[in-house]
């Protein structure tokens, strides 16, 4: 068999992989238009209309760090501190390196009523959590896919090519791909299965009494939390959720008083 025939095989394999990758993109132009309208409303200081536009994009099944970020800004401008914190937290969930969201969130948290001293966390958990959320999901997906591609292309090269140099290159490709797959693939899996990542929420109402049990009984009130406070959701029933504050306080609130990040 001639060399050119073998190259044709490899090119065909690569194109096939690209087609598979490329087919995941979907047309979003209509939603983009609504998003840009929202931006225009915001710039014209019609913040309520901006909120409506951004929410329409979300309702259309689309999202992005910037969409949540802008929505948070619009909520903040309409005085909805809790919702703005929720939106900026969602921004950071999608892209932990979003500096604007982090800055706005810091300001908004300072404006919220509850000043909660967080309990120290075991360093290993903090480190894992930091690592898992370091790279945005989309970037992680691309890198893992490239790793998989490198691994398979390396395997093809080692199987099909004869020249020692090409085979060595293939070997490197396989190794690099395998390392990427193990390291980032496991990160992606941890992220996807939300291992060690508790469900979190933000209080959206001005103040809510937290009970010791899921019942509407003032005698059970253990403390009060205010708008914008971020909580961990431990468990929930249809109407009640058990929340844990960063300082370790635990209690039940109605599900409706908070938004889930």
């Amino acid at each position: 068999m001639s060399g050119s025939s073998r190259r044709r095989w490899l090119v065909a394999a690569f194109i096939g992989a690209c087609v598979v990758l490329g087919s995941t993109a979907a047309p979003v132009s209509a939603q983009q238009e609504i998003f840009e309208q929202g931006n225009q409303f915001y710039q014209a200081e019609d913040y309520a209309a901006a909120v409506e536009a951004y929410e329409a994009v979300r309702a259309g099944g689309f999202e992005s760090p910037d969409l949540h970020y802008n929505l948070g800004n619009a909520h903040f401008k309409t005085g909805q501190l809790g919702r703005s914190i929720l939106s900026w937290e969602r921004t950071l969930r999608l892209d932990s390196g979003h500096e604007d969201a982090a800055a706005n969130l810091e300001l908004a948290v300072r404006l919220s009523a509850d000043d909660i001293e967080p309990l120290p966390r075991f360093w290993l958990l903090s480190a894992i959590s930091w690592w898992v959320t370091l790279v945005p999901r989309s970037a992680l997906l691309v890198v893992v896919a490239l790793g998989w591609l490198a691994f398979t292309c390396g395997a093809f090269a080692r199987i099909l090519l004869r020249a020692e140099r090409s085979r060595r290159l293939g070997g490197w490709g396989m190794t690099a791909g395998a390392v990427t797959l193990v390291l980032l693939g496991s990160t992606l899996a941890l992220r996807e299965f939300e291992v060690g990542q508790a469900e979190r929420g933000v209080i959206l109402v001005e103040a809510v009494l937290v009970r010791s049990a899921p019942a509407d009984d003032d005698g059970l009130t253990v403390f009060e939390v205010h708008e914008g406070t971020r909580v961990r959701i431990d468990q929930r029933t249809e109407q009640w959720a058990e929340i844990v504050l960063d300082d370790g306080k635990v209690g039940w609130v109605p599900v409706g008083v908070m938004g889930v990040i």
Partner: protein
Amino acid sequence: MSALVRFRRVVPVALFALALTSAPALVAQLVAQNVGVRAYLTPGTTVGVGRQFVLNLEVTGVRRVDRDPVLPDLAAFAQYLGSGTSTSMEMAGGQTTVALTVQYRFQALVEGTFQIEPLQVAVGGQTYNTEVLPLTVASAPPAPGAANGSTDAGGIAPADLFVEAEASRTTVLVGEPLTIEYRIWTRLDVTSFSLTSEPEREGFWVEGLGQITQPQVEQRLRNGQQYTTALIQRVALIPTGAGQRTIEPLGIEAQVRVSRSNDPLDRLFGRSPLFGRATVVPAAVLSNSLSIQVDALPAGRPEPFSGVVGALALTAEVDRDELDANDAVTLTIRVSAQGNVRAIPEPVLDLPRDFEVFPPEIVESVEPSGDGLSGSKVFEYVLIPRTPGERMIPSVSMGYFDAASGSYGTARTDEIPLLVTGEINEPPVSLQRVGVAQLREDIRFIRLGDGALRPVESFLFQGAAFWTLLLLPMPAVLGALGLRRHWDRLEGDVAYARGRRAGRVAKKRLATAQGLVREGDSRAFFAEVANALRGFVADRLNVAEAGMQIGELRVSLAGRGVSTESASDFLACLEQCDRQRFAPAGAEIEERIQFLERAGAAMTMLDGALR
């Protein structure tokens, strides 16, 4: 220090010798005595301004009180000087009476008639109040030079001891210094003195001219009387605003040694320590007050104005006139002035933009000069030129009011050339950089652009794309492995390679034969078909094509398990080819086409049988 605080100081209690030696047997008797409390003033209820009076509190029947008595506030018209305590014991008719007396010394400051509110004293668990005492402060200042006057608490006449305040001038301009000297005059034996009240010099900037620790005592004749005099304080004042100003009097308390009796002989010998008949009494004295007229400066003052009223001179120099860029040079600006040197502001430097300038080191020296002040203020700047070239340190100017000519003047320095050498290596830095101040806090602006929207993330492991991408390479790798094996066999197994090639080569030859169908020469046609058939079967059986006999072929094919029918058809075709190749008559075109199809079919059948 306020009068009240001074009062709370621990006061040594002087006890009479008798009290110290009293027998303890008296104690029971003393406890039984009635307690009496009264207050009285000495020397009397009238006292001259600046003079001392004593507020006495006498408690009879006890030798001690529960706690310090509470004094009324006399700060409105008197200055507290100090206090002392004494106890006494009298025996009369078998009865022993003890008394405790606390003496509070004050200096009267303000003329008028005042009431001294009751003193409060706690004795034996009970609180007693004294009566209200009237006090008249008369306008009887110690007229300097007066031969005689009323006697003071210590029996001292105002003319015998007084303090005189004297201003170097009584009409000055704003910013023009004047000096005030306070001089004590006495015809008594003053052993020591202390300042009791320093006047507030409102509207003036005060420049102390050094503390006088050892007053220079002189003898002077004044109004025909011999006085001992000494300068006790000297201050320079610089008026800060125009108007009529009054400088309040300075208060002192002097310790005066006086004779204890009025006997002229005692008075004569009293001064001699040998006789021990003299005693030291405190005497409070106020100086006279002064009135100063301060005039405003005329309009049209030059800017920048130094504030100096007097004379002013400016010089400037650098420690070198040639230097490399980024090296430092020291610029010294010396301001010499007669007047208020301390008020001289930093000169305004208009340096080239690329000069980095550090805050100056300032050295000032002030000393009294005549009836005013003089001195110098030196500003030392470190300059760092950042770019080379022939530079010029511009002239510095400063305005002042020339008191001698009564007009404004401006002093200025010369321009100073400076040669800066070296290469341009960095852009000029801006001067006096400061941090950026945050004026208000707000959230950051929204992200413009298309928003990079994506469908809301679904669970990755449920996506078809994910599994496609994950699994697609697996069959592909298997395929590649198969391909590799095939390539390897082609290269290493001749029989396999010939067998794989047989059909292709045969097809090629049959195609050549097809081209010959319509040619006139049927031999060539049949020879080509025979080649195709022989080549095919030779490749498939991996035997030499040359010299292949039909009989041998039949045996070989049967040995490979080819059915007789398939083999016969193929061999029949081969036989016909051989016959036609050597037959003279040419076959018809139609016949050739049919034969070609038959040969192809025979080959296909044999190919199937050989797999």
